[in-house]
């Protein structure tokens, strides 16, 4: 009965943690990082060099996912490789690659929306708040909290993958996990609203009328009377609409906004838009 030693599993994990994307190219993405992480395991489980080489070819096919949550897949294949070395006949190249290919899409979606799209922005949001006035506490807070929690999480899913095999995925796509994930995203939606209100400030200096005492009536004041900051909100929603519904790339939207702002400014800040941003 062969068993992967704790030391080798750790080695494999840290190799993945560090090297999952360091050799990125559009063609192979995380493939080399994956092979590098599997190499110590294969070397320990199989004795002859020929056998080791043959087993490494299992991991030649393309691999790409959100690498942090994807640590689970590496853990799962470590477990599968151990079972195969012990003679489990149902485990062959096709089966292992079926699992790899089947998991990388869903895990990428979850990792991108939950880790990169929600968790990191929330942490950064708090850090920006702490950095107000140029305080180093903000970035230091982010460096410490992010690296500890993220590394812990990756080790956790790697170990779970190794222990539970394919059923580890239940932790991430099971009913409870799905409910949890979608609920966190609800929280994210509220937070993004609050971020937009605190960090972006789009205003106009258009004068719409003169009141009975001869004082100017400003559009900005009228709008804010109806819904404070509504112009800012509409601009954010407009940018979202262009990207989400019209499939414009962020860079194109940026350039479009540059044009709008410049035109607004040239026509004259007292006629069209005047933009200003308040941080904090």
């Amino acid at each position, binding site marked *: 009965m062969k068993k992967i030693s704790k030391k080798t599993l750790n080695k494999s994990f840290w190799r993945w*943690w*560090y*090297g*999952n994307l*360091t*050799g*990125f*190219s559009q*063609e192979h993405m995380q493939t080399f990082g994956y*092979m*590098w992480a599997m190499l110590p395991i294969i070397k320990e489980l199989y004795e002859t*060099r020929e056998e*080791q080489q043959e087993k490494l070819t299992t991991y030649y096919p393309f691999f*790409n996912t959100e690498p942090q949550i994807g640590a689970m897949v590496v853990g799962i294949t470590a477990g599968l490789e151990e079972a195969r070395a012990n003679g489990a006949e149902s485990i062959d190249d096709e089966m292992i690659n079926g699992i790899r290919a089947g998991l990388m899409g869903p895990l990428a979606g979850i990792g*991108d929306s939950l880790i990169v*799209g929600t968790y990191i*922005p929330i942490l950064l*949001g*708090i*850090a*920006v*708040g702490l*950095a107000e*006035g*140029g305080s*180093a506490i903000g*970035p230091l807070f982010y460096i410490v909290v992010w690296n500890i929690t993220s590394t812990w*999480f990756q080790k956790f899913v790697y170990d779970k993958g190794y222990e539970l095999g394919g059923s580890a995925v239940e932790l991430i796509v099971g009913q409870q996990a799905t409910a*949890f994930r979608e*609920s*966190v*995203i609800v*929280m994210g*939606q*509220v937070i*993004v*609203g*609050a*971020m*937009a209100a*605190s960090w*972006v400030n789009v205003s106009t200096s258009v004068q719409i009328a003169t009141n009975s005492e001869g004082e100017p009536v400003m559009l900005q004041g009228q709008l804010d009377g109806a819904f404070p*900051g509504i112009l*800012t909100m509409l*601009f*954010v*929603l407009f*940018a*979202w609409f262009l*990207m989400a519904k019209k499939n414009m790339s*962020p860079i194109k939207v940026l350039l479009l*906004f540059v044009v709008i*702002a*410049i035109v607004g*400014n*040239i026509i004259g800040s007292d006629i069209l838009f*005047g*933009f200003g*941003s308040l*941080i904090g």
Partner: protein
Amino acid sequence: MTFFQAALIGIMSCTAASTIACLGTTVGNYTLNRPLVASLIVGIILGDVQGCILVGIPMQIMWIALVTPGGTVASDLRAVSYIGIPLAYVGAKAAGWDFGGADAQGLAGTISAMTGVIGITLFYGTAMMNLIWQHIGWAQLDKGNMEIVGKVDCLFPLVSHFVLSFLPCTLLCYYGSGAVQELFSVLNTDMWYVKALLTVGSVLPAVGIAILLKSVISKPTDLIFFVFGFACAKSMGLTLLAATAVGAVFALINYQLMMMKAGGVATASASDDDDEEDI
């Protein structure tokens, strides 16, 4: 800026080269690559932590949610963080602006957008160059040299970083800072085009927030939560952390509703909550 300082910034840009960062995903891409973290490091190198962080904040907000689905990048922040921040700082300093003031913040936003475009070029360049190492890798693997895998994955790409991160960042910081300094010390902010460029920078955070919004909205009704969060902060004056607490209440209600729909196990799952909270 001395050449030594520029070279240090150049080295940092290699460690933080987006998804290909030579210090890996967690430390490289998601820590050192973030403008807020970079502003601290650039601040240490240039000897003004406070000023650099103030310049870095609007850049961070603009790129707060940088998701790279399938390896297609919206931007590679190595250029924003390690070309944009030093140049914006030098410019604002030469012009004599208050780093937290509207002019400096606007300049930071504008430079952030421009350097973001440079970053994309550097990203695809590095990825292309890595293909060379991988070709070598496959050939060696065919010959049975398994140990090549580690070298292809993390040693050879350092050459790509030297050519496409270190050289451009160091040179742009070194020569660019001199040019920027000269330009900004005589800059007249009353000129219409200078005014326009500065105001442009301040509207761009709207795009950053919209990128973030895109990653959390899956159906139009979700936008109601966004509007709710906006009203919380703007009309009711909640801070970001307070709004997070309010959002958490709605998240909990949503969780319990979903679990109830799934078979009435919401109350029984209280102990499992703790396990998953960390995700």
